[in-house]
Structures are given as C-alpha cells and as structure tokens.
C-alpha cells in the first residue's frame, strides 16, 4: 500500500486549464481595446482623407460581422461541442432581431401612434404580442427570453423524445421554415415580407449618427468578447466535458449517471439566447429585419461559418464568420458574376483539405511536417506507445 502512495505523488494529474492563458488574456485585452477605443478613434477622430481613417462603411460591416460571429459561436456550442447540428438557428437570430425591431418601430412611430404597417392593416390598437415592445428594459430582456423560451420549449420536447442527429437537424429546419412562412403573413403582425425598416432612433438618440454607429459597433464587439469568454468558461468546466461526452457517447454518459436532457437543453437555450442577442444588435446596424432571416438557406449558411472556421474551438467560428462574410462582401463587388464559384469552391476546399477548419490549419501543417519528418527517419528513437 505505501508503494501506491509513492506512485500517486509521482503521477502528474493534468491541472485544470485556466480561463485564458497569459497570452490569451493579452490577446483578449488587445481585442477589447481595439473594439472599444482604437476603432472608434480611427473612425471618429482620424479625418476622412487619412489612410488610417476607418470608414463608416467598414464600421457597419465589421459590426455586422461581429454579430454573425456571435451566431457562429452559438452554433459551435451546440454543434461543435455537443454534436447537435441545428439548421434552424436563423430563427433565434431573427427572433432577437424582431424583438429589437418591434422596439425600434415603436420608437419610430412615436409614443401614441402605431407602427406604419399596422395602420395599413387597419389595426386600431396594438396586438397583444406587441404589449411590451414600448419598454427598452423589457425589450432587452425579451431579446434573450423569447429565443430562450421558444428554443427551450422546442428543445425540451425534442430532447425528451431523444431526437438525435439528422432527425433533429431536419426538424429545426422545418421549424424555422414554418416560422418564416408565418412571419410572411401580414396578419401575423410583424410587417409581412417587408418586415421592419425605417428605424429612426434608439433610446431617443438618432440611429443615423456616426457616434451611434460606432456605439453599436463597440457594443457588438463587447457582446462578442463577452460571449466568447462565457463560452470559454462553459467549455472549460466539467459541464463542457459532459457536453462532449454526450456528443461522443450519449448512452455511456447516461450510464455514468448524467441525464443528457438538462445538459442538452441548457446549452441549447444558451445558444439560442446568444443568437437572439446577436440578432438584436444586428438589426439597428443593418436597418432591416424580415422573415428571410429565417429562411432555411440562411441557417445552413450560419452552420457553414462555424464549420469553415473550425468546430469545437471557440476562436475558429469567429474567424469563420469573418472569413466567409468578408469574402462574400468583397467578392459580390469584385466578381459579382463569379463569386458563387469562389465561395462554393471555398466550402469544398475547406472540407476536403482542412477538416479542422481554418483555425486548425497551422497545427495541421505542423502535423503534416512532423509526419514527414518522422517518416523520413524511421530509425530515430521514438517515444513509442507512451506518446
């Protein structure tokens, strides 16, 4: 028995990972400063002609991308770490957007008037589902709650019935498709196909000022960094490992005493809420929310951002969202007739050659070099089985 204790002390159990390493914190801080100080300064203080000036257009574009990045992160939590592919996250994004849009419409209409499209429908008073749209505080809460509750109800039943794999993916698709058709209808009360546009102010401040644009940009950046940190905290905890266990061997997890339902449901709701937040930040920046955000193709594209960046890594999806959308923005101008070829080819190439996504490209190259080196000198002593 004493021998055992000896062994124990000699055994190096892995230490829990820190939330972020020193380098990680440094980078995080740099990103924080870039988003909150540098970018606003470059936009507001540097004169327009200067080479360092960050144009309004770019501020808007990057702000939008950061919202997309939050979505990609949210999908990564549920797909990359929990193995549940949602083809309906566009719904949660749109719900967050619609909640925010309702608030902005109310502001644009003024305190006593109805949003313009309602007058057109001959509605004389606000329908019940608009009840809370006048309050910013309520809106801020609903932005998270609506996607959370709808996702929660759907998720509860789906996970309880142990719907898995593509069955789950396909019904999320059906759900968002159904929601899209519902929102298309004028009677549903969300502006039909046109959705909401023509926003004017946010909390009384005009949406059309440079300062507001920068503010929304910085808020999106903060939200993204916050979501990142939160995700990192989740994934690093045992909770995160249980999620991965559920992904890899759900039944084994159950025999270890974990009930997968609350795990899946909680991460699903968290993911839905993150999407809602992203949608809410997105809408005032792009100035429109309409049902096509719930289209099936949109949701698939969102999953593609995550996959291109690299699943089951937190930085990957952010890179993916920026890369795909940046590429799209650039190519639709640079090669309007051919950009789909390039984008399509990108997706194919990434899957074929970079199974780990963009984020794992460096390590993939390293591995490949290692392998070549190892194969080049088979006689060299190797660590063998211990590896």
């Amino acid at each position, binding site marked *: 028995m004493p021998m055992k204790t000896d062994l124990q002390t000699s055994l190096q159990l892995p230490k829990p990972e820190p939330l972020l390493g020193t380098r990680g914190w440094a980078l995080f801080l740099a990103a924080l400063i870039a988003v909150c100080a540098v970018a606003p300064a470059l936009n507001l203080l540097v004169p327009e002609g200067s080479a360092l000036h960050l144009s309004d257009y770019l501020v808007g574009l990057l702000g939008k991308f950061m919202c997309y990045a939050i979505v990609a992160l949210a999908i990564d939590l549920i797909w990359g770490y929990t193995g549940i592919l949602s083809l309906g996250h566009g719904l949660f994004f749109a719900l967050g957007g619609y909640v925010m849009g309702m608030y902005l419409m109310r502001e644009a209409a003024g305190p006593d008037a109805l949003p313009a499209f309602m007058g057109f429908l001959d509605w004389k008073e606000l329908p019940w589902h608009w009840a809370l749209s006048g309050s910013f505080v309520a809106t801020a809460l609903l932005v998270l709650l609506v996607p959370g509750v709808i996702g929660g109800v759907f998720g509860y039943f789906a996970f309880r*019935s142990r719907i898995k794999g*593509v069955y789950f993916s396909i019904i999320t698709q059906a759900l968002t498709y159904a929601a899209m*058709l519902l929102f298309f*209808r004028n009677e549903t009360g969300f502006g039909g196909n046109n959705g909401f546009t023509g926003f004017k102010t946010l909390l009384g401040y005009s949406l059309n000022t440079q300062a507001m644009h920068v503010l929304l940009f910085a808020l999106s950046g903060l939200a993204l960094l916050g979501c990142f940190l939160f995700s990192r905290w989740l994934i690093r905890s045992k909770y995160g490992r249980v999620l991965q266990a559920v992904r890899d061997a759900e039944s084994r997890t159950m025999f270890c005493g974990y009930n997968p339902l609350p795990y899946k449901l909680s991460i699903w709701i968290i993911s839905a809420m993150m999407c809602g937040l992203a949608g809410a930040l997105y809408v005032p920046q792009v100035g429109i929310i309409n049902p096509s955000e719930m289209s099936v193709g949109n949701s698939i594209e969102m999953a593609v951002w995550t996959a291109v960046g690299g699943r089951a890594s937190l930085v990957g999806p952010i890179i993916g969202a920026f890369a795909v959308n940046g590429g799209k923005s650039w190519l639709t101008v640079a090669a309007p007739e051919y950009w789909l070829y390039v984008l399509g080819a990108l*997706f194919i190439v990434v899957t074929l050659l970079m199974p780990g996504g963009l984020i794992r490209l460096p390590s993939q190259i390293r591995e490949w070099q290692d392998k070549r080196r190892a194969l080049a000198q088979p006689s060299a002593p190797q660590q063998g089985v211990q590896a």
Partner: protein
Amino acid sequence: MKILHKAMAAALGLLLSLSCHALTAEQAFAMAAAEDNDARAAAINAAALEPDEGGRLAAYLQALADDAVRTAGGKAYVIQGERTIDPATGTAATLPADAEEIVNNNYLRGVIESAQAALALTSPDVQARRAAAKKLAEEPDAARLPLIDKVLAGEPDAQVKAMLERAKAASLLGSENTAERLQAVQQLAQIHTPETQLLLNQRLADESDPAVQKAIRSALSSIAESLAWGERLGAIFSGLSLGSVLLLAALGLAITYGLMGVINMAHGELIMIGAYATYLVQVLFQRWLPDSAFGWYLVVAVPVAFTVAALVGAVLERGVIRFLYGRPLETLLATFGISLVLQQAVRSLFGAQNVGVENPAWMSGGVSLLPNLTLPFNRIAIIVFAFAVLGAVAFMIARTRLGLFVRGVTQNRAMASCVGVNTARTDTYAFALGSGIAGLAGCALSQIGNVGPDLGQNYIVDSFLVVVLGGVGQLAGTVYAALGLGVLSKLLEGWAGAVLAKIAVLLFIVVFIQKRPQGIFALKGRSAEA
C-alpha cells in the same frame, strides 16, 4: 347602348343586302374590322345565321380564329402560309403592303367559336354536330333559338338532340315567360355539371320570381350534392399527385442520403440538371427533327436526364464526396458548396431566367371521370413514372448485389473492403445511381413546374423532410412519408389555404418526430445503435 344600336343597324343592313347566301367581301371585312368589337360580333353572328354556301364562311371563321386575317383598303385577306386568299371568292389575291393584322380578344374569340358551332350544327359529320351542340348548350344565346328549333326538327342523332334540348333549355332560362323559365330550370336540374351550375347561378343573380328562385336553389343544391364526390376524389388525386412528386424528388436522396449517409445539399441541383437535360433534348428535337417526332422527345429525355445527372454525380463522388465518408456533417458543407457552384454554372450557361419545357401533346388534356373531375394526363404520367422508378429502386436495393454491397459498404466501409468489395466503385455507382434518379425527377418535374436555376432549392427541403420522416435508410418509409405528406397537404390546403397548410404540415412533422424520433419506419433494437 348607343353603340349597340348602331351595330344592330349595321348588321341589319348587311342582312338585307344579302341576296345570295354567300360570304361577301363587305361582310368579311365587317367581321374582321368594324368600328368596334361589338360591331364585329354582330357581323359575325349575323353571318352565322345564314346557311354556309361552299363552306367559305366556315373557312373564314377558322381563319379569323387563327389570327390569319389581314385587312387593307376596306377588304379582308386570309393568309394561308405563303399565299393570300380573298375570303369572299376563295381565289388568290395579293396582300397590300399596308395590310393590318387583326387582333381578336377573348370576347371575339367566344363569338367566333359560337358562330362556328352554329354553323357546325348543320354539318354532315355527327361528331362535329355533337361538339357543336355541346358548345351551344354551354353558351346559351336566345338569338339562336330559332336555329336550334330548326335543327332539332331534322336531327336524327339522339345525343345531338339531347344536347340541343339542353341548349334550348339554357337559352330559355332568360325567357320573359316565367313558366318557360321554370321548365328550363327543371330540365337543367337533371344535368349535374359545373356548367349548369354556372348557368343557374347567373340566372339566380337576375331572377326576381320567387318560384323560379326556389326551383333554381333546389336544383343547385342537388347538383352540388352530386358533384361533391368529384371534389373529394379530386382532392385525393391531387394529394397522390403531390405525393408522387415528393416521392420522385426524394427517391434519389433516399439513396445518396438514406443509404450512403451523404447529407447531399446538392440533391436539388442534380434534379435541376435532369430538368435542364430534358430541356436540351427538347431543343434538339425542335431544331433537328420534324414536328411529328416532338411527341417522343421525353422518351429520349428520360435516359438522357438519368445519364447526365448520373455522370455529374459520379464526378462529384470521385472528386469530392469519397474523401468525406464517415464524416457525414462535412458532406453537408461540401455539397452545399457544390450546390452553389452548380446553380451559378447553370446561370452562366443558360441564363438566370427560366427556360421553357413543353409537354408533348399526349400529355396535355386528361381523362374526364366525372363532370367535375378530370385527371390530367401529365399528372397521371408522373404518378405512374414515380412508381415505376420506385419499383426499380426497390428492386435494386433489395434484390441485386449492388444493392447489397451499397448497404454493406455504407454500414462498414473498412470491413466491406476486407471481404472483397470494391468499395470505391460501389460508392461511385451508388452515388451515380442516386444522382441519376434525381435526374429522372428533374425530367418529370420539368413537365409540371418551372425549369430554372432555383429549381433544386424548391425541392431540397421537402426531399429531406420526406426521407427523414420516413426513417433514414427506409425506402418503404420514404414512400409512406411522401404520399402521406402529399395527401395531408392537400386536405389541409382544402380548408386552411396553402400558407397555413404548409405551416401546419411542417409543424405536424415536428410533432410527429417527437412521437417517432427515428421516422415512420424506425429501426428498433440494438442494430439501430451501431
């Protein structure tokens, strides 16, 4: 009103001037170009009251219907291919350079057709008389009563007679005489067709006499009752038809996805390729082969659509998909990329707009089972085609070695190879087959829908829903799911409208999967987990 009077007067004048009962040049001109369309109509109707000497009037009416008439300098000309003919004399004429085309609208076309029918009543051909009598029964005109009476007196054919009685009753619906109207209603009440419904409803709108009103109402309700069956059957038929479309669209996916596990987002584009292949075959037929051959273009298009789509599928499998086996979610990504590329490729090659695919003649029209139930040939053809393809696929999967190998390979690729199956080739064949079937679906869908770069996008969601609802890898499930969804959609659409029906169907699927998380035909037991 004024115009009408003037037209009447003109027609009357014409009538008076007609001493010999043959088409005159003036008459012909008036029929083609008068002051206004009412005048033209009056001229046409007037001409049709006279017996047609030498069939010249009939020929002229046909030319009018065919838009083959030109006018110049107060004269009408008929264009016959290269030649120009004087309608009054039937002799050749030269077309003045400033000749104008004659345009008929729906109203005039109706007038011309009625006139033709009236003329045909005296035709020696009994079939033509029957058709004409039917036409007159559908479009009653009190002015033709004397003509009908005259023909009735001498008509030997019972069917024509019955039709004419009907036409007479229909014409009498508008009579001044209440008793006559009542009798007409009673007579029409025997005829359970939608056309009668229309006549009675129209009369009802103007009718003031309560007795006649009551008679019309009871006639209408008895007709509606007897037509109800046709409606029900029609709804079921449309459900089956939609189901067979879904089935066709999903069958290829049942192989590439259901069996092979490739989440094939490019499936829709393979359907599209099949449709474009059909279009190309059609164009080739139109361009290089005589018109008479056109009816057969589908016979060529079916194998061509299959082959082209299968080849594209084989290339995709060899080039991309084979590197992704065992990574099903990655196939989603890659095939999504492929679908973007294929769509844009079609835009580059054929343009972004739709291309036209025509049904061969044998596919237009339908069989009339009940007065209000006509089953269109193209729908029937698609149902038959879908089941033929289904049969072939089922046979392939369950009975052939390739089918066995495909199932084996997709379950355990490494082991299949260890027992000697050439997995690479099996995969290629299987994917090509699934793609080819998608191509067949495209060929069929081109007959009922549009052919454009987006074609595939419209079917991809439904295809996946069908395959998944049926149970992945379960061909029988796919069939049940397709037909079930088809019929359910159509029944719901009947009372909730298309939009709500679609929403309801989608939600139904969401709920249904809760009850059966692995689809209709779920695998049970241990083997499902492996």
